[in-house]
């Protein structure tokens, strides 16, 4: 086992100062092998499972089980064509769910995201197609409308203290009505095929090298980032991931990335929509986990009073989270409109909201606030969309699909509640 001088010193100093102890404590084990061993990471994993920190595991298991079931029922399910379509279908709702994560982290909920996505898409379509505004300006207008709606709802909830679910429930109705008003008599606006919003979900990087190259790049970046972090941790003497663990994790990332690239290349190549979605997932994950702003959002969800006493401007932070949610709902709305090349009266339906919430919760975002990442959304969307796609392939009627999606959402929330209880019970042990 290799150790740096620094970590040896702190270890030795601690052992010397601590009370003499015959039995080995978790800390002893940690000192013994955290710096170099694989075992401590396995132990850490077991501890997390026991104390209810399931993380992404339920989502991964759900995807695996669903794929096996659907594939055994219909050979078309895991075909490159179906998987490629699935990867584009998750983007619109996924974007909405990404914004929802910010609000869910606060422990609030935004029920208006579906309607907001419909309204903003309608604003874009009417301005661009009917009024002849340049496409970029119409997109900007849609995003601004989304952010402004978020700010207004956030103000009522955070500043005036109205429960968020009531404010956004009112929004759910009001923004849907406004969308119908904006769309006017015709009720449907078709998007021009040459526009870039249309291209968002219809463009594919047909060059095989693009998908493979990006897969290789992301694996390399992942490895280098992990390795640098580990080296820095080692040099200052705090717990770090040994090279063996980094290698295993990198290998896992590589398998997933290259398998995805291979499958996508067997259909039409890497979809532009998927690439944009993944960039959003990675970027927002960084914001939430590594920036001061993200830490503040998470801490409000974990304990608003603690955050307030720590000097945070809780009201403004809450409003900002609702603005993120509104803006990303607008982004999602554009992708959804792009997918069907139109905005109509059924845009922004309530099934969208249910799917977005379900995706976040299934992936591991807690409804109680303070827990969850944007990767949860990717995983949750895979589950939701796999169910939808599989049921279509099997010819299950739409009403039944709603029942099943509702059941999946309930199951995810139950798991979330149980995890929370288990964590609390563990704290008292």
């Amino acid at each position, binding site marked *: 086992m290799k150790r740096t001088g620094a970590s040896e010193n*702190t270890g030795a100093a*601690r052992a010397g*100062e*601590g009370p003499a*102890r015959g039995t080995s*404590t*978790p*800390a002893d*084990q*940690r000192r013994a092998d*955290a710096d170099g061993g694989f075992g*401590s990471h396995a*132990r*850490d994993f077991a*501890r997390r499972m026991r*104390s*209810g*920190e399931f993380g992404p595991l339920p989502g991964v298991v759900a995807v695996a089980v669903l794929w096996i079931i659907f594939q055994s029922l219909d050979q078309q399910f895991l075909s490159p064509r179906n998987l490629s379509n699935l990867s584009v279908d998750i983007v619109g709702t996924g974007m909405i769910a990404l914004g929802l994560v910010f609000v869910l982290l606060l422990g609030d909920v935004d029920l208006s995201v579906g309607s907001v996505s419909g309204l903003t898409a309608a604003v874009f379509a009417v301005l661009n197609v009917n009024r002849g505004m340049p496409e970029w300006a119409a997109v900007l207008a849609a995003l601004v409308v989304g952010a402004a709606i978020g700010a207004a709802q956030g103000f009522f909830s955070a500043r005036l203290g109205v429960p968020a679910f009531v404010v956004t429930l009112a929004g759910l109705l009001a923004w849907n009505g406004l969308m119908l008003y904006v769309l006017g008599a015709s009720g449907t606006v078709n998007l021009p095929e040459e526009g870039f919003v249309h291209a968002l979900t219809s463009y594919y990087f047909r060059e095989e090298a693009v998908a493979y190259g990006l897969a290789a790049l992301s694996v390399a970046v992942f490895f280098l980032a992990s390795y640098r*972090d580990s080296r*820095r*941790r080692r040099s*200052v*003497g*705090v*717990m770090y991931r040994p090279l063996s663990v980094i290698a295993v994790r990198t290998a896992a990332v590589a398998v997933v990335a290259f398998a995805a690239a291979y499958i996508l290349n067997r259909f039409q190549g890497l979809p532009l929509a998927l690439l944009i979605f993944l960039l959003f997932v990675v970027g927002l994950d960084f914001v939430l986990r*590594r*920036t*001061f*702003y993200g*830490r503040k959002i*998470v*801490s409000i*969800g*974990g*304990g608003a*009073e*603690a*955050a307030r*006493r*720590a*000097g*945070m401007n809780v009201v403004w932070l809450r409003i900002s989270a609702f603005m993120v949610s509104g803006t990303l709902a607008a982004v999602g709305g554009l992708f959804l409109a792009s997918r069907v090349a139109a905005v109509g009266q059924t845009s922004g339906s309530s099934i969208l909201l249910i799917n977005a919430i379900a995706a976040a919760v299934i992936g591991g975002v*807690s409804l109680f*606030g*303070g*827990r969850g990442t944007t990767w949860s959304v990717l995983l949750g969307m895979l589950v939701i969309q796999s169910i939808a796609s599989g049921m279509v392939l099997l010819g299950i009627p739409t009403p039944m699909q709603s029942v099943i999606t509702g059941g999946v959402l309930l199951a995810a929330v139950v798991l979330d509640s149980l995890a929370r209880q288990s*964590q*609390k019970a*563990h*704290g*008292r*042990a």
Partner: protein
Amino acid sequence: MSAPLLAMRGICKRFGAVWALSDIELEIHAGEVVALVGDNGAGKSTLVKVITGVGPADEGVIEWNGRHVRISRPRDAQALGITSVYQDLALCETLDVVGNIFLGHELGGKAILDEVAMERRAQELDVLESLSMRLPSFRVPVASLSAGQRQTVAIARALLSEPRLLILDEPTAALGVRQTAQFLDLIERLRDRGLGVLLVSHNLGDVKAVADQVAVLHLGRNNGFFSVPTTSQEQIVSSMTGATDNAVTHRRDRWGEVLR
């Protein structure tokens, strides 16, 4: 004897027509644990709020190291080096130990957190040593810690700013027997480091165990200031409840000694 770290003289606080505090005297020296005891509604919390600047006094003088100071906002108290740990601890359940310790004082660049630097500083805090013995890592969420461990985290956070005076509000209320003993050890270590500690407590056992001085409040007034080693628990209890009418004369005698 050097000037006390904190001296409060003639502190009064009214809520409408009610005198929550009248003519309160209190002294805390560096390296001394002073217990503040009293029955419910005696004014303990109000006095703590006066010291921390959450609810400033209406009248009276506060001296810090012999210098006359004004504490009218929480920030004033923080600037002097007064930190408090409230009974509810005010922790973020879902953040890990390191995240909680640095809550509101995160390390990093302009926008990006420096997790490694924070974890390293947390490891260097000797208050957390008892915690590191029992936890697999400082990266476990606070929600899964025991009451005693959470208390330690809250105190570590309070000590991060290297205060001169630490106010602990009912710190042992949620702790078990062994955890309480560990906690009292911790207080003694802090005292030996030269911190002034104000311990607000109902638990006279704890008070007898660690406090050097006991200040008793009764109905918003001083009702005795005792040196712990020379005072029996019964004496303190009778002052707290106001059971002895001669407590008034008793107090006068004691105060004569202390002030001289």
